[in-house]
């Protein structure tokens, strides 16, 4: 709901700006009107030389960019390339030489980049024309537009957020948003290892990857559905078990009369601090078919044959959940112990007077309070577990492999499958499709949280 109203508000604001764009033009004087065509004129002619020159510079660079490559980049998006790489007989050298064709990947990349450049330019353009109109208003009111010095002061005070956020926003566009748009678009192409640039072209295929993953391609859709179910099972178990065991551990350590609290806590914290790739690779050695645990058990004559901790599908699934307890319980212990200490003690005192034992106290006071306070944390954990790459990949690498699956193993989550599809299989289009499905999954669960909790809206009350 909230997102919906925000969207309509955004659209309204956008529509209002378009309206202003034309009213400013009709109400503007000759300089303002001219600055609609030559950017920066409205600043330059009214005493803001630096700003005006900067706007003009932006416009010139933009026009140059569009003429040299921008326009062709955007047009290239329609086909993603038509000319295949060829081997042509070279008369003068007497050999076949490779003549470069279109590179679909680069065309898509530059096309996306060009669209973002255009959007950025439109924004700067809007700033320049509305600024020019404002200058006109200021002059008509008998004041002078800010000079460069004053302008800087404004950016260090009233508009400080712009100064501070420019770099982060720019980098986020460059390293998160543009790549994501690129990847989302890849999901609508046939970019796999048979359509690999520069040797081959790839092109748009619409929703083919989505339908293939959902039902059309039996192998892929079986893999997708099975891994989706396993991902959800895994995420539920990993989250709930870690949370409960972590809380029980925290309650034990925090119990009155238990000494050396700090000592116990530190022991468990140490295991968090050891880098996960170290501890998990260690675990995978420990639990391998010929691994230390099996060797020890065999020497003690407890078992005749090795136990397939990581090589039997069902057992491997149980193993990863158990090992994940080893990884995750200390975290939830740390998180919950702070909150446990915050539970008002009078709640317990009055419960004791009513004759409630420890068990009842836990179910009636501790757990409801904890769930109330850590609800958002739990959902974040759940989403984190949907995307839990490390535990699965480093422990089993997704194995045991299965022929029923398309390039995946029995313990693969959707994310590790995505990783394998790109790194081993170069099936970028299917990988992007899976990525979009994972996004929808996370978004679905996040929406539930943000509708239920009000904590984000209340932040102002605490300052």
């Amino acid at each position, binding site marked *: 709901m909230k997102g919906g109203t*925000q969207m309509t508000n955004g659209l309204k604001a956008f529509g209002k700006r378009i309206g202003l764009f034309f009213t400013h033009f009709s109400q503007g004087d000759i300089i303002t009107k001219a600055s609609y065509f030559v950017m920066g004129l409205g600043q330059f002619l009214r005493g803001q030389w630096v700003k005006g020159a900067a706007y003009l510079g932006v416009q010139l660079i933009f026009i140059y960019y569009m003429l040299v490559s921008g326009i062709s980049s955007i047009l290239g998006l329609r086909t993603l390339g038509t000319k295949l790489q060829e081997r042509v007989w070279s008369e003068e050298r007497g050999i076949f030489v490779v003549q470069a064709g279109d590179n679909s990947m*680069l065309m898509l*990349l530059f096309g996306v980049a060009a669209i973002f450049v255009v959007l950025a330019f439109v924004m700067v353009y809007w700033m320049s024309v509305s600024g020019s109109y404002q200058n006109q208003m200021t002059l008509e009111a008998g004041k002078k537009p800010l000079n460069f010095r004053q302008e800087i002061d404004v950016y*260090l*005070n*009233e508009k*400080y*957020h712009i100064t*501070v*956020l420019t*770099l*982060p926003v720019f*980098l*986020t566009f460059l*390293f*998160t948003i543009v*790549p*994501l748009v*690129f*990847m989302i678009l890849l999901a609508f192409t046939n970019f796999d290892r048979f359509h690999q640039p520069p040797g081959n072209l790839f092109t748009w295929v619409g929703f083919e990857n989505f339908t293939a993953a959902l039902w059309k391609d039996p192998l892929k859709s079986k893999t997708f559905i099975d891994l989706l179910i396993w991902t959800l099972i895994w995420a539920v178990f990993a989250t709930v078990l870690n949370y409960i065991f972590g809380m029980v*551990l925290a309650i034990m*350590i925090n119990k009155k009369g*238990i000494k050396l609290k700090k000592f116990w806590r530190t022991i*468990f*914290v*140490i*295991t*968090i*601090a*050891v*880098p996960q*790739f*170290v*501890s998990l*690779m260690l675990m995978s*050695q420990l639990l391998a078919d010929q691994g230390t645990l099996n*060797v*020890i058990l065999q020497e003690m004559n407890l078992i005749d044959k090795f136990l397939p901790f990581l090589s039997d599908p069902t057992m491997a699934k149980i193993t990863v959940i158990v090992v994940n307890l080893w990884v995750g319980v200390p975290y939830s212990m*740390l998180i919950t112990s*702070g909150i446990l200490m915050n539970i008002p003690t009078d709640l317990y005192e009055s419960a004791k007077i009513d004759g409630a034992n420890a068990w009842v106290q836990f179910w009636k006071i501790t757990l409801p309070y904890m769930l109330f*306070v850590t609800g*958002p*944390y739990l959902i974040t954990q759940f989403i984190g577990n949907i995307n839990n*790459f*490390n535990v699965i*990949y480093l422990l089993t690498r997704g194995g045991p492999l299965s022929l029923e699956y398309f390039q995946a193993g029995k313990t693969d989550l959707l*994310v590790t499958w*995505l*990783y394998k599809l*790109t*790194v081993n299989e170069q099936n*970028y289009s299917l990988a992007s499709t899976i*990525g979009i499905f994972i*996004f929808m999954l996370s978004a679905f669960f*996040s929406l539930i949280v943000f509708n239920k*909790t*009000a*904590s984000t809206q*209340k*932040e102002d009350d605490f300052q």
Partner: protein
Amino acid sequence: MMKSMKARAKAGNALIYAILSGLSFIWLLPIVWLIMSSFRKEPGAYTAYIIPKEFTLDNYTRLFTETTLFNYPRWFMNTLIVAIFSCIISTVIVLLTSYALSRLRFKMRKPMMNIALVLGMFPGFMSMIAIYHILKAFGLTQSLFALVLVYSGGAALGYYISKGFFDTIPKAIDESAMLDGASKNTIFWKITLPLSKPIVVYTILMAFIGPWVDFIFVSVIMKDNYQNYTVALGLFQMLSRENIYQYFTRFAAGAVLIAIPITILFIYMQKYYVSGITGGSVKG
């Protein structure tokens, strides 16, 4: 009556001590095994015992002397360089972003936070693959520079924890400074930052640790360029099927060497870590 209750409490505590000791044993066992293996003289990955038959420091010295196949010193320096640069860049970005989103009020604030939320729901290395192609288009892949960009480029999205800290600084301080004529820039540098030393330290350390423990991003970026591997990826190679018998003990030594400083840093930082994660929800 009182006596029996006391006795029961004592028995309960004894049980808890027993459970805690048992759990501690399970939790510490892999770590003890790692440390012991790093001092083990006998080669091989799978032994039927945990305490080595013969102790040696060879595994540590050979990490630094035998560098033809696995160049540990080089990987260590690579990681250090990448960690220092990405730490500087991402600390600046994180602090700027979280300050703006916490202390300043502007029209785009809420939308920006929502966008950050949505972006965070895409699996991290989905954009990673695209970044790989972008870097390739610029001929930058398999370089340490690319790695620095990758680790610090997306830093702004990890603003939550330090924003939570900035949120706790009373607004009245800012307001009284503003009455004295201080600009927001002055307030940020002269008031907010000095008050936020813990979170600055936390941000710096977290950004510094990142490259030491990451495995996924570096494996996508570096592919087969052994010379530019970081420690994590390098150590991973030691456990491949052909190498594990000969190199397992050396892997253990290399892992211990990076685990020690990280462990110390983490124990030192745990309280910031906890308050950062629970901060937002406790207030709800």
